[in-house]
């Protein structure tokens, strides 16, 4: 019997038992759909996070408090970074182009009778360069504002809209933590960064922030939350990292463990990659389990089917089917079930991925690898879980098979 005949025969048998065939396929369908959706979502998260960090530009470095080990240990890190550190980096590290220390907290903001809580971000004018922000209307605060600790504020696009609607906020007074600030500018919309809306923030001089709002909380000087640095060019990023580390070690009199970490964009991407890879793997593993269970479902049904069709197998053998013919027949039935299940599951998974991409910021996409792996695996599952029942069928003694009740 050739393959085409065998396939036709298998299709006939499977369609004769539609409900059972469908139920058997269901396991594989669900398994495949979940593998493709989960991998799609995982990779979407990865792509999303990577793009966010890539959008920072390749020259960006971040200096954050606490050593890498300390960051793994606790969220309550020592406030070791100061405004003076930032100044020292700016003046002493030759490969650095611009330095933006950031000191930020959530604060109540009011304008007349409207109030909200937004992120208040104290920084220096270099912030615009380092983080690639721009002012849409008015101006950002200047070096002079920083020196004089003036109470001026540039509003994020969403904050401006929330308080002032269509009217011009420039020159108006808003209150941050009951201190009056004059609006001098409105920022261009930047969208979200890793889920944080950057437009729902206001920007004030870092000196004003530390002296009027947060107070001097660090024993070492004017505390900053972290420092963003822009290296001169992509090639000098590693040099900058090295130089900044050395400088800060000197300044902080580090003898054993660093009390800060300097991260490049590449480091950040790597971390994001590791985290999201683990996430993707975990999701795929969970989905893989359902695929495996689907395979066991196939084996289960095939075994029942072999028992039920003992007469058929005996008859086929009596009229001339060889062991191989029977083996091939049952294998093909298993493979067809899992392959069709695989294709339908892939379709559903693709739809699921499209749904996720349409309704969330995750850049979920169907990866060809995921499809190939899922369909390959489900085909393989058909083979693997089909072999055992098929061998049982092939080895049946025709005499016994025909005589059985």
């Amino acid at each position: 019997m050739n393959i085409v005949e065998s396939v036709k025969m298998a299709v006939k048998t499977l369609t004769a038992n539609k409900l059972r065939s469908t139920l058997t396929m269901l396991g594989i369908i669900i398994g495949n759909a979940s593998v493709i959706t989960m991998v799609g979502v995982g990779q979407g998260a990865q792509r999303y996070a990577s793009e966010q960090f890539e959008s920072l530009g390749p020259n960006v470095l971040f200096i954050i408090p606490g050593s890498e080990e300390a960051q793994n240990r606790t969220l309550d890190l020592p406030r070791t970074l100061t405004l003076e550190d930032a100044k020292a980096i700016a003046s002493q590290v030759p490969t650095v182009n611009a330095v933006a220390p950031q000191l930020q907290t959530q604060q109540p903001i009011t304008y007349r009778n409207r109030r909200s809580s937004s992120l208040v971000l104290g920084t220096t004018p270099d912030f615009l360069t380092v983080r690639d922000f721009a002012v849409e209307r008015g101006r950002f605060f200047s070096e002079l504002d920083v020196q004089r600790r003036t109470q001026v504020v540039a509003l994020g696009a969403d904050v401006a809209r929330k308080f002032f609607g269509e009217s011009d906020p420039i020159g108006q007074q808003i209150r941050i933590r009951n201190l009056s600030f004059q609006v001098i500018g409105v920022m261009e919309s930047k969208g979200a960064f890793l889920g944080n809306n950057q437009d729902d923030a206001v920007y004030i001089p870092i000196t004003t922030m530390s002296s009027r709002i947060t107070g001097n909380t660090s024993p070492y000087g004017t505390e900053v939350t972290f420092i963003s640095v822009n290296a001169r060019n992509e090639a000098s990023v590693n040099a900058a990292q090295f130089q900044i580390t050395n400088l800060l070690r000197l300044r902080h009199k580090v003898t054993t463990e660093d009390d800060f970490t300097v991260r490049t964009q590449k480091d950040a991407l790597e971390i994001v990659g590791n985290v999201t890879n683990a996430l993707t793997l975990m999701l795929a593993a969970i989905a893989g389990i359902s695929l495996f269970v689907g395979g066991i479902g196939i084996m289960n049904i095939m075994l029942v089917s072999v028992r039920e069709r003992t007469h058929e197998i005996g008859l086929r053998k009596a009229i001339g089917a060889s062991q191989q013919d029977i083996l091939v027949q049952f294998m093909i039935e298993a493979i067809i079930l899992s392959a069709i299940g695989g294709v339908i599951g892939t379709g559903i998974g693709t739809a699921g991925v499209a749904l996720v991409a349409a309704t969330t910021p995750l850049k979920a996409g169907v990866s060809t690898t995921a499809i190939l792996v899922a369909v390959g695996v489900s085909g393989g599952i058909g083979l693997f879980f089909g072999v055992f029942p098929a061998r049982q069928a092939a080895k049946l003694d025709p005499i016994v098979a025909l005589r059985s009740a």
Partner: protein
Amino acid sequence: MQPVIRLEHVYKTYGVGDTEVRALNDVSLTVETGEYCAIMGPSGSGKSTAMNVIGCLDRPTSGRYYLDGVDVARLSDSELAHIRNRKIGFVFQQFHLLPQLTALENVMLPMTYAGVPSNERKERAVVALTRVGLANRLHNRPNQLSGGQQQRVAIARAIVNNPVLLLADEPTGALDSHTTHEVLNIFSELNASGITVVVVTHEADVARQTRRIIWFRDGEVLHDHLTPEDLTQMSMVLS
């Protein structure tokens, strides 16, 4: 012309040592081409084992079996499958039609294993079904056919590969007397057209339709050439 079946000192034993059972004990038997014979005997007489050996479903433990001149006693499973496909047509008590296939498809089945091209397959299946009087039932499934019709489909399936031997195992065991007649008539017609027919049965009425009766007892051939008349006498003696 060489005989269709030639068994020479065939033994078939099951188990070993103390539990050894001799199902066939030195059976020698010859059935010539064109014969129509019945194998009879009480249960446990070895007639089923003999049928399995003759039908190439089982191998003798020792001895030789020539089917259509070919020594088949030592062939492998797949070679036996090939022999069954080409040389033997089986008819069973329970018909053993595949329920998901139509009459035509059931009859085509042996030809798919023989590798007959599909258009020829259909032609030959139609011819075979016409021969058993079912030309108007080609596309019915088994559950749409009466018992007698199902057995006739099974006969068509048995003859479609032009076997040298039609081997029927209690072919009327599941039929009423009317359809039994139908089926036996078809056997007679097929035999008249030259096909060798061997029927394993315990029904004397069925055996009487044949021309030679082989009587088994205790794994041995007790009578090799009983005629239907002998059978009538025997049954009178027994009753």
